[in-house]
């Protein structure tokens, strides 16, 4: 740990629980807080899905009998709704990440809150389209 950082800390200690949960403390006046918290939450959700997806894909190793019997389950309504929500999480996470990259390169720094609004709008729209395609087509 570098000395200047320790000096900034000034002896202030933050416990493990606080370090793990500080990002969940609401700051409704700052849209950027919501962007950060939602980016992190959707990242955790997608990571969890990734693990579950790997577990499901492992059934491929059992051949057609192992895999094809699962299709009926994954084609059922609850799973399709889950897929729609997952696409929502992925879409938001991607666009939110793109927002951070844009801000890093100086694009839209005067409108960081409005950019977040745009991210919400576009991801909601894309999720709605995907949901329609998944659930009703």
């Amino acid at each position, binding site marked *: 740990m570098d000395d200047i*950082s320790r*000096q*900034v800390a000034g002896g202030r200690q933050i416990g493990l629980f606080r370090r793990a949960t500080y990002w969940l403390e609401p700051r409704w006046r700052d849209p*950027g807080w919501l*962007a950060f918290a939602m980016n992190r939450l959707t990242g955790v959700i997608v990571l969890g899905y990734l693990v579950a997806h790997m577990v499901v894909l492992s059934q491929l190793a059992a051949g057609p009998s192992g895999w094809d019997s699962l299709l009926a389950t994954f084609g059922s309504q609850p799973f399709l709704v889950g897929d729609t929500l997952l696409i929502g999480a992925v879409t938001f996470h991607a666009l939110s990440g793109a927002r*951070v990259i844009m801000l890093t390169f100086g694009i839209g*720094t005067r409108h960081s809150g409005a950019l977040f609004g745009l991210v919400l709008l576009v991801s909601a729209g894309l999720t709605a389209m995907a949901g329609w395609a998944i659930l009703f087509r």
Partner: protein
Amino acid sequence: MPETRIRLRIWRQPAGARERAGFETLEVTTDPQRDMVLDLIERAWAEVDRTLVFRHACHHASCGTCAVLVDGRERLPCVTSVQSVWDGHSPLTLKPLRNATVVADLAIEPAAVLAAMAALPLPYVRTVEREVRECSGGDGDGDVGTAERFEDCLECLACVSACTVAGGDPDYLGPAVLAAAQRIVEEPRGQDVGRVIDMVDSEHGVWQCRAIWACSAVCPSNVDPAARIMDLRRRLLTGDWPAAATTHAPAGSGASHG
């Protein structure tokens, strides 16, 4: 506007006794159109409780000393009018800034962050962005050339208080220090830019920022720390440095921690 009574819900924390901290309500008289919030704090100290601890100095937003949380938002109470923050009946809540060690009541200990800014070090005088022209009676063409002024940053630490990340990482350099570093990169004024870059290109430096932008929202002096942190990141990624910065090793070359 006639004077009226206002209840101030103030955080009281005896020095060295965090366990006895809590809110206390003090009532004072105010003319919401005339008074600033700092006037109320001083009135509470003078007329109600002389043990109230708070900081104040210039009373006109040039020193940054008095910054506190007014109803959960970082403000300079010396220039925050009562009528702009008070609804006329609810208590006005005053707390010390976040993400800092509380000395007592509303006073925090700023020394650690201010020492970091001094360690950069941040020169306090900068050039003016626009030309200043002197208009005489004749052709009005007298150009006084480049003028100087003080840096925008008041070192009030409102940005550090507002920063969510600083609330979770005590070693985060924070928006104040990083914005000051960017000012040195932008306008070196004889400083060792490479050294400054080396200080901020780290896990607890610019890369810890999560683009929340709360710091810029609460800054009373148009520093825009968030944009400056992003500017440092952009420079680190693209290698866009002033000519003086020839001593910085490129990102990814790594180094052992100090």
